[in-house]
C-alpha cells in the first residue's frame, strides 16, 4: 500500500527565486525506508517540510495514507497529517523531561494508554533509566533516541528524519545506525531519511533518491531525478 504519494511538486522560497523543487513526483510503500541524498541546497530538507506541512508547495499534490493533505484546493495543517519528524538538532523541549517530551505527542490518545505508551517507547529506544532527565543532561546519541521515541510515540503514518546523524561522532554513528534500523523495523515504520552520507543509506535504507540542485540559468530545463 502506498503511504506517501507526491505528484508534480513545485516549491520556491520566494516568488522571484527559481524553484528549489520543480515538478517532483515520488511514492513510498508501507514499511519502506527511503534515503534522500543530495548536495546542500538541493531541496532535501524542503521536501520533508513540504510532506509535513511546514511549507506550502506552489503546485502539486501530496497524499498520505490515501488521504490528500495538499493540492490546488486543499491544505491540511501539520498537526492533522499524522507525520512524525526527527529534526536535525532533535528539537527536544528543553523545559520538559524525557518522559514529558514523549508524553507531549500523546494528547489525542486515551489517558489510560498514555503512560504505558511512554514506557513502551522508552524500552524501544533503551532509555528506561533516563525518563526523568532533562535533554541537556543527555549525550548527543541519547538525545537522538529520545527524539526518535517522541516522534514514534503517536504512531505516525510516516516518519521523516532530517540529517539524524549529523550531530554525532563517527564512532557513535555506526552503532546508532544499527539501533535505528532495528527500532524502525520493530515499529514497522515507513521512513524517509535525509542525509548527505551514502554510508547511512547503505546501512539503513531499502533504496534512495538523489536530489540535484537546479541550475538557475537552465530554468525549466533543470530537472530533479530519482535513482532507485
Amino acid at each position, binding site marked *: 500500500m502506498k503511504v506517501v504519494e507526491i505528484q508534480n511538486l513545485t516549491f520556491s522560497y520566494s516568488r522571484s527565486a527559481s524553484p528549489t523543487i520543480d515538478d517532483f513526483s515520488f511514492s513510498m510503500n508501507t514499511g519502506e525506508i527511503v534515503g534522500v541524498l543530495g548536495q546542500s541546497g538541493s531541496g532535501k530538507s524542503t521536501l520533508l517540510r513540504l510532506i509535513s506541512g511546514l511549507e506550502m508547495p506552489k503546485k502539486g499534490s501530496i497524499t498520505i495514507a490515501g488521504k490528500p493533505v495538499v493540492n490546488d484546493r486543499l491544505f491540511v495543517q501539520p498537526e492533522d497529517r499524522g507525520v512524525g519528524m526527527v529534526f536535525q538538532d532533535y528539537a527536544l*523541549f528543553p523545559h520538559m523531561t524525557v518522559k514529558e517530551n514523549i508524553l*507531549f*505527542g500523546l494528547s489525542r490518545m486515551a489517558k489510560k494508554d498514555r503512560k504505558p505508551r511512554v514506557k513502551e517507547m522508552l524500552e524501544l529506544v533503551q532509555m528506561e533509566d533516563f525518563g526523568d532527565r532533562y535533554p541537556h543532561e543527555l549525550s548527543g546519541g541519547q538525545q537522538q533516541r529520545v527524539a526518535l521515541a517522541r516522534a514514534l510515540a503517536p504512531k505516525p503514518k510516516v516518519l521523516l528524519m532530517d540529517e539524524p546523524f549529523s550531530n554525532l561522532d563517527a564512532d557513535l554513528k555506526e552503532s546508532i545506525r544499527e539501533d535505528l534500523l532495528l527500532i524502525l523495523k520493530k515499529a514497522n515504520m515507513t521512513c524517509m531519511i535525509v542525509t548527505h552520507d551514502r554510508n547511512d543509506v547503505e546501512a539503513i535504507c531499502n533504496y534512495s533518491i538523489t536530489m540535484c540542485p537546479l541550475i538557475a540559468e537552465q530554468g525549466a530545463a533543470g530537472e530533479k531525478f530519482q535513482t532507485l
Partner: protein
Amino acid sequence: MRTNLKRFLQKDFNSWWMISIIGAAVILLPILFIFFSLFQEPNENWFQIREYLLKTYVANTVILVLLTGIFTAILGVSLAWLVAAYDFPLKRFFRWGLLLPLAIPPYIAAYTYKTMFSYTGVIQTTLRNQFNYQIDPEILSISSLRGAIFIFTFFLFPYVYIMTKAFLESQSSSFFENARLLGRKPISIFVKVVLPLSRPAIVAGAVLVIYEVLSDYGVTSYFGIHTISTAIFQTWFGMYDIDSAMRLAAWLMVIILGMFILERLLRQRRRYHLNNKSRPLVPMKLKGFKAAAAFAYCSIVFLIGFLIPLIQLIAWAKLTFSKVWDETFITLFFQTIFVAAIATVLILFLSVVVANVCRRHTTGSYILAKLTTTGYSIPGAIIAIGVLAMFITLDKWLAPLYSYIGLGDAPLILSLSLVMLIVGYVIRFMATGFNAVEVGYEKIGTKFSEASRLLGFGMTKTFFKVDLPLIKGALVSGFILTFVEICKELPLALLLRPFNFDTLATKTHQYAKDELIHEASISSLMIIGISILSVVVFQMIDKKVQR
C-alpha cells in the same frame, strides 16, 4: 487564484492572524485620521499659524533635532569606544553606570537644572555666599534652545552609547589590530575605522534620540521653546482648535515619515558590514595620564547626567517631604502603576500574538510588524490627537446606543474615559514590548514549535505548552521596559487623561509649571526609582549577551 487563496486561508488564516490584523488596524486608525486632516478645508487659525508661526516652529524643531543628534552621537560613540576598547579605573562600573542618565526623564532634568542654575539655586548661592562672586545670570540661564540641547544631550546619549557599545563588542578585534599594525594611532583608528564601522549602530541610536526629541513636550514647554510638538499643545489647549492641531500633527508626521525612510535607507547598509565574532575586541589597559583622562571623562558625564541631579532632587525631597507627602501621593503612585500595568499587559498580549504570526518571514508578516510598531516613531502629541479624533468619531457612532441605554443624547463616554489614555499608550509603546518579545522568539527559533505542531498541537496549544515557557524571560524584560516607559511618559498623559486623573509624570509637570520645583522632587524621585528598573534589565541582558 481563488484556489490559492483558499489554500492560504486554510494554512495561515486563524485567530492569531485575526487578532493581529485588528490590533494593527486600531494602531493605524488614529494615524490615518491625522493624514485625512490634510485633505480637509483649513480654518482661519491655520492661515495665521502658517503665516506667522510655522517657520519658527519648524526651524526650532530642526535645530533641536540636528544639534542634539550630533552631540549625543559624539558623546555616545566616544564613551562606547572608551568602554569597549580600553581598561581604566572604574570601567566596570561605567559600563552600566553610563546608562543611568536614561533613568532621569529629560523633563525632570530640565526642571532640576534650571532651578539649580537660577538666582536662588545652589550654584549662584554658593558662588555668592562662599566666594562672594556675583555671576551674570544670563551666562547660567539654560531656558533656551542651547539649554534644551544640553539637557537632551546629557540625558539621551545612552541610546547611542548602548547601541554602539553592543556593536563594537560584537566586532572582531582583527579590524583594530590590523589598523594598529598598519601604523595608525588610537585617534586615527577611532576616526578612520571605529566611526565608519559603527555607522549603522550610531544612526540607529541617534534616530531613537531624535524620536525622543521630536516627541518632547516637557523640556521645550518649560524652557519656552516653540517646536511643532509644543505648538500642537498650544493650538489644542490655548486656542481650542483641534483641526489646526491635527494639521500641525500631520506636518510633523510628514517630517517623521521622511526620517523613517532615511533611517531604513541607512540601515540597509548594515548588511554590508562584517560581523566576524571569531576573536572579540580585547580591551587595552590604559596607564597614567591616559587612564586618569578616561576616568575623568566618564566621571564628568556620569556626574552631570545622573549623580548631580539625583543628589539635588534628594536634597529638595528632604526639605519638602513633610509638606508634600500625604495619602494623595500614594493614590497617585498606584494610579500610575495601575494604568501602566493595564497598558503593558495589553501591549504584551498583542506583541506575543503579532510576533508569533511574524515568525514566518513573509511579506505580509513584515508589513504587519512594521504597522504595529509605527507608534514608537510618532510623537505622543500626534498620537494623542489621532486617538482623540478617533474616539470622538466612535462616540458619535455609538450615540444611538448611549441614548438607548439611557445615557442621554450624544454624550462623550469613551472620549472622557481612561480607555483613551490606555489606547494611546498601547499605540506609542507597542514597539518596546514587541521588540523584546520578537527577540525572545528569535532566540528559540521555530524548531520547537514545528516539533510541537507535528506532534499534534495547534498554534494556540503550542504557544501555551512550548513557546510561552521558553520566552518567559523575554516577556519579563518586555514587561519591565514597557512599564517603565509608560510610567515616565508625559505628553500623552497630559493630553488624554480623564478629568481629575493624574500620573506621577503629570503631577511632576504640574508642580514644575506652578514653579513648585522643590515639591516636584518626590514624584520625580519615584519616577527615577521606577526607571532604574529598566537600566537593571538592560544590564542583565548585556550580561547574558557577554556570557
